């Protein structure tokens, strides 16, 4: 297997950073965020899971998808082509999340052209997790701490550091192969370390069981606590709802520039579902919070295939009132068991 020593990896990253945009986890005043870096020294080595997912680079929080210039004549410009970008240190859950978003934007018509451009321009270099950390539950939703889905390359830190830290390299796509071309690597016989898995996690109910639990008073009670903010959806690597609005970017006599902005939106907030005339079909935090979970475990998999959750656990750690998606998964399994017992009786 191909192996990179830490110094070979550093050199390679430094070289990549000169040729294209290198994005990696960075400590930004105590928060771990994916930010462009100039060299390997800016990277927060030894990080666990970032606070925001690398989704911010393939599905930016804000983007002008079209610019409209109105002067003596009207000109419509698409967004400029994105810079070629390599994201280093992607955790396997976040790569699976990118695949989940692809299912909506790329695999169903109409295809989202801008998202396709960003995805094409981006190469994902994964870094396997040695263990499942607190709040991690990737195994509940079909992932693994060392999973390769969605990555162009996966690095695994090797145990036995007699030669200093080194990384086993699994190349997983032609994009990954191209990126590694010409890089000095060693060829060693190494065994990949097994990640430590968390025991005793609940089992995810199939979508039919979620359906049966839809009208339970449970959702009312759970939503009592919800503050209806947007934190859970914004830290989520899989949430992909957005709002689009045409806004004036600049104006001078006879010449106006409009931007068609796309920005993240969140189903948990009140204006998300508000429609013309002011009516809101999901008027309460309860109905909106329930929608968030049903989207992840029923609507999205039923309509597009993948689950809308990869088990990163960010929402668990971020929710200011401790709404815990793993607790919800256990509770729904319990509700479904009670429901079927009642049916049998």
């Amino acid at each position, binding site marked *: 297997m191909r192996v990179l020593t830490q110094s070979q990896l550093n050199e390679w990253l430094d070289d990549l950073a000169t040729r294209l945009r290198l994005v990696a986890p960075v400590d*930004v*005043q*105590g*928060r771990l*965020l994916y930010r462009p870096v100039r060299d390997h020294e800016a990277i927060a080595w030894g990080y666990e899971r970032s*606070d*925001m997912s690398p989704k911010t680079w393939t599905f930016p*929080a*804000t983007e002008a998808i079209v610019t409209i210039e109105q002067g003596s004549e009207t000109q419509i410009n698409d967004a400029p082509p994105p810079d070629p970008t390599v994201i280093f240190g992607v955790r396997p859950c976040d790569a699976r999340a990118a695949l989940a978003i692809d299912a909506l934007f790329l695999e169903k018509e109409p295809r989202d052209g801008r998202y396709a451009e960003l995805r094409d321009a981006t190469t994902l270099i994964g870094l396997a997790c040695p263990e499942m950390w607190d709040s991690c539950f990737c195994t509940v939703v079909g992932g693994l701490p060392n999973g390769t889905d969605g990555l162009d390359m996966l690095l695994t830190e090797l145990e036995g550091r007699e030669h200093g830290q080194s990384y086993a390299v699994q190349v997983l796509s032609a994009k990954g192969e191209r990126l590694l071309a010409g890089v000095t690597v060693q060829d060693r016989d190494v065994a990949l370390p097994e990640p430590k898995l968390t025991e005793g996690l609940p089992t995810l109910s199939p979508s039919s069981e979620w359906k049966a639990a839809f009208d339970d008073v449970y959702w009312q*009670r759970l939503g*009592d*606590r919800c*503050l*209806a*903010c*947007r*934190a859970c959806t*914004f*830290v989520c690597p899989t949430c992909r709802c957005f*709002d689009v*609005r045409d*806004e004036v970017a600049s104006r001078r006599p006879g010449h106006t520039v409009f931007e068609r*902005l796309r*920005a*993240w*939106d*969140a189903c948990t*907030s009140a*204006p998300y579902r508000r429609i013309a005339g002011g009516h809101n079909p999901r008027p309460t*935090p309860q109905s909106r919070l329930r929608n968030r979970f049903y989207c992840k475990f029923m609507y999205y998999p039923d309509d597009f295939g993948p689950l809308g959750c990869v088990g990163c656990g960010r929402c668990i750690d*971020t929710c*200011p*009132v*401790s709404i*815990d998606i*793993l*607790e919800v998964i256990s509770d729904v399994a319990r509700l479904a068991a009670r429901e079927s017992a009642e049916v049998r009786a």
Partner: protein
Amino acid sequence: MSSQQEQIREAARAYLEGGVVSVVIGYEHGPKGQVRPAFVYEAGDVDRLIWSRECNQNLTTYLHSFKHSPRRGAPVPRVAVVVRACDARAVNLLLHEQQIERDNIKVIGVVCGDREARGQERQACRYCQEREPVIYDTLVEPEAPVKLSETPDDYADILEMEEWAPQERLAYWLTEFDRCIRCYACRQACPGCYCFECVAEQVDPHWSSIAVELPEKFFFHVMRAFHLAGRCVGCDACEAVCPMDIPLSKLNRKLAKEVEDLFGYRTGDDPAALPPLATFNPEERLPL
């Protein structure tokens, strides 16, 4: 005397059994031992309620969820809420602003113990000189005597910030706001933020762009701070819920200090005092 937790449970049980309220808002432990808000509807469930020095959320923000009639013709629900001294001033704020009716709420006021430990974790607790909440129906007394802070808030951090040059201050805040993800957790956790439609989200007129970028973040936080001038109770709930650790209490404290200096007014202290920014007094002359 029984523990504060026991007293809270007793009060909740009495309110629910007597049909005085339909729900009690307090604190409970989540599955990982974390403290979180709890809504108890049945007297048999009151043992879920807990009290510890980690009970730091301002639960009065949830009073907005119960201030309207749930269905046409149905009465406005009656609610009991567990409050600390700072939260109690938020109850006064909401009464003052006619958001809630006194008859519809029962206030379980807790005298916070463990001041030193609390103060190490939260700035709001460090200088707190309040023992009893300013408004309560049931008072939850501590088992041991409470040692209050002897020194009032000296606003040392704010005075220091005021020394900075305007460009330095701007640079500081832009760096802090840069991390903001515009999740609005600060606004949602705040009992004083209850507009039906927030300026930051209003569609017509469209005051603020939907972009999650620095100008919008800056606009949002500065606008929110101004809207809370003379209304913020200093509970620090906004800062506590921020997923990006933005020091929001500094903004609020700056404006609270201005209002105290100009009007000698602290939010919610005296339910009869008129809030300065909601009062027009033709005699008033500001020392400008």
